């Protein structure tokens, strides 16, 4: 839907510090149109900070952030408005669609897409964690969004659900391609989803390894690409020799 628009997202020489805590130092990051970039790194290294800089919730101390296109973030959890139903939460993403009929159709499509038919009128607190994350995803995908920032969206889920959600995400992105920056602790996730993995060092964060994965998605969890990629990342993080 927004294919015509050129999407660009870049950090150039960005540094950021909270008070005296320096979190990022002269970081450069370029995200290509339609690419899925996955950031992995130790806890507290500044991944969430990067996303906040990209989305504009934070202004960098120095450096430049460049973004065109509509950005939406999928949070780890509790990003849904609890006073709105599933349907209403999804409709938030469709606010700019003025045609009611089209909005209604789009909403139905999205509910269908995330397999939540029958739950349209449920409130977030009546859903399971996995269902909630799917609603968040649907909301972020709705309407004219170009870029998805995802901050550990599946980390609160159990392992099986996480595996399933990963497949779901791949399926959904196939139908609605987006430019994605995805933060995770889960190396499996990175290996299965990414076009490009950026391994970050601990604070202040710098990119210490960049991995391109050319194998098309969906990727088999026990397939050689995933295993190889995981090995490389683990080595980079100093967890395997």
């Amino acid at each position, binding site marked *: 839907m927004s294919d015509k628009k050129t999407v660009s997202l870049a950090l150039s020489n960005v540094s950021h510090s909270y008070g005296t805590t320096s979190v990022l130092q002269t970081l450069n990051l370029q995200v290509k149109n339609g690419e899925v970039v996955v950031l992995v790194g130790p806890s507290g290294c500044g991944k969430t900070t990067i996303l906040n800089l990209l*989305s504009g*919730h934070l202004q960098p101390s120095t450096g430049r952030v460049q973004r065109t296109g509509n950005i*939406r973030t999928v*949070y780890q959890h509790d990003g849904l*408005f*609890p*006073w*709105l139903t599933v349907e209403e939460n999804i409709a938030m993403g469709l606010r700019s669609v003025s045609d009611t009929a089209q909005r209604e159709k789009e909403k139905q499509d999205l509910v269908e897409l995330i397999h939540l038919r029958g739950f349209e009128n449920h*409130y977030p*607190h009546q859903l399971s964690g996995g269902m909630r994350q799917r609603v968040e995803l649907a909301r972020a995908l709705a309407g004219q969004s170009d870029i998805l920032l995802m901050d550990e969206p599946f980390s609160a889920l159990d392992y099986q659900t996480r595996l399933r959600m990963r497949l779901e995400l791949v399926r959904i992105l196939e139908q609605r391609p987006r430019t994605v920056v995805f933060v995770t602790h889960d190396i499996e996730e990175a290996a299965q989803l990414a076009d490009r993995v950026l391994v970050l060092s601990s604070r202040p964060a710098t990119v210490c390894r960049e991995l391109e994965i050319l194998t098309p998605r969906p990727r088999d969890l026990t397939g050689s690409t995933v295993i190889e990629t995981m090995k490389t990342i683990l080595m980079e993080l100093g967890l395997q020799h």
Partner: protein
Amino acid sequence: MINSKHTSSSQKKLQILLPVLVLAGVILLWIIITYTNLFPAYALPTPGAVLKSFKEEFESGRLMNDIIASLWRVAVGFVLSATLGIPAGLWLGQHLYARQACVPMLNFFRFLSPLAWIPFAILWFHIGDKPAVFLIFMATFFPLALATMSAVATIPSIYFKVAKDYNYKGIELLTKVTFPSILPQIITALRVSYGIAWVVIVAAEMVGCQDGLGYGIWDARNGLRLDSAVCYMIVIGVLGMGIDRLLAQLTKLPNVRWGYER
């Protein structure tokens, strides 16, 4: 399945039965005390006398008039303080400096018993509905404003981030994000301050009024009619409880349920 259904229905019965039993026990105790003259008649009227005075007050139309007078004053004072207090709390909650500047003052007035205002209420508003409305306002404005304020100040920042992602701005941000996110707390604050209002109205009507439930007690006392005073006390208690039950229904609304189920 059948078994569990059975227990839940018998639990429900118990839920009704137990309070009724306690109530009956209290009335029985009252009857025993009055009939054994444990207290002299002038110190504790008999249930019979109270029932009779209830009938009398009801038939003369006084009781209805007093109930309406009290409800009217509480309603007006309460709506006034909600329409001013909640926006004030919203504003204060969003402005750190204003909050720092005003909170000590608000707290000062909150801890000042509204009854302390009685002399001024009468001086400024003379007698009639106005002083009572003023006292209700003074009793409920500050707790409401403070509760709203602290609710706003503690809204998770993630809601505002999401709101920014989805382009909520200005008045829409206020009515579609800020307000609903504190609605559960506002409802709780409303219930609490309604409780204060109902307690205050009785005291407020003892001076400067010519009708109302509080006045009814005062008047009964002047007329050396404790039976009618007890009748008014019962009406006040029952009404207060009933209205609180009504307000409690607000917490059952689906779009605030989340606030009470976490």
